[in-house]
């Protein structure tokens, strides 16, 4: 999606990122079960109007880069019963991501 005003892209495929564990007020598309977790950028999806602003009839600009972050299930859940190769992919907006080791 090409939009006029987009925040600069900070991450690329393969980058290790951490999803912030701050609490949110109002509409938010970062579920609590991934907050504070670390994963790898699997896809760069482009920039999209920001849902936390769209929810309140604001234009949601600048558009925010959106990434598919791939997380290991056995790191997400203490008691994950499946194999170590199982993953969870989740689409997270850039304001929720920081670089990780």
């Amino acid at each position, binding site marked *: 999606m090409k939009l006029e005003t987009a925040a600069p892209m900070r991450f690329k495929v393969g980058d290790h990122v951490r999803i912030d564990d701050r609490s949110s007020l109002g509409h938010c598309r970062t*579920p609590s079960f991934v907050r504070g977790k670390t994963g790898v950028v699997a896809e760069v999806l482009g920039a999209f109007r920001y849902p936390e602003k769209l929810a309140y009839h604001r234009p949601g600009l600048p558009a925010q880069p959106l990434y598919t972050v791939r997380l290991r299930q056995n790191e997400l859940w203490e008691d994950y019963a*499946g194999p170590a190769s199982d*993953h969870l*992919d989740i*689409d997270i907006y850039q304001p929720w991501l920081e670089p990780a080791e």
Partner: protein
Amino acid sequence: MHDGHDHDHDRTFQPDHDRGPATPYEVLERALHTLFIEKGILSAEEISRRIDEFDTRTPALGAKVVARAWVDPGYKARLLADTRAALDELGIDIGEIAEFKTVENTPEVHNVIVCTLCSCYPKGLLGFPPAWYKSLAYRSRTVRDPRAVLAEFGTVLADNVEVRVHDSTADLRYIVLPMRPEGTDGMSEDALASLVTRDSMIGTTVLKAE
């Protein structure tokens, strides 16, 4: 075991929608519908047209796309790279609400789709989602124990197959491109399409040749 195919005889009994008392939600819907029309906000015709148009979206549409991808490697590559454009090629317009992305099942990776926060679903291609997809049970458990959820659908995957859950949290709606079943060489595209079920495009089932 329920494999989610769409034949009439699999539907459980449901009370006639028009017989029980009208709930406050149904009364509200009628009141809003009337108000929108009386106030010129929407017209009755465009509402009807939209309903009719949506009735053309069914899993059969997705099945057609899957069958094309199976027989035509170039189409498959385009579908994976840019699903909206690939659907356009087949005359399928998915509308403006969301972008679509196709994820491919392989012998190494099995994909399954969920929307934990609401019930995002590729309606523009597959039509309305099944009630179970929107349920608290599916939304809550699939991210945490996908193999147990898959087992409830009769789907068991070996430990050397990665189960990859997609939580569609943003503007992308995901469709699974299921693996083509064994023993289907030489089948026509139409025959292949008839093998493809809705649930295989959500990722809760895998396909076997009939």
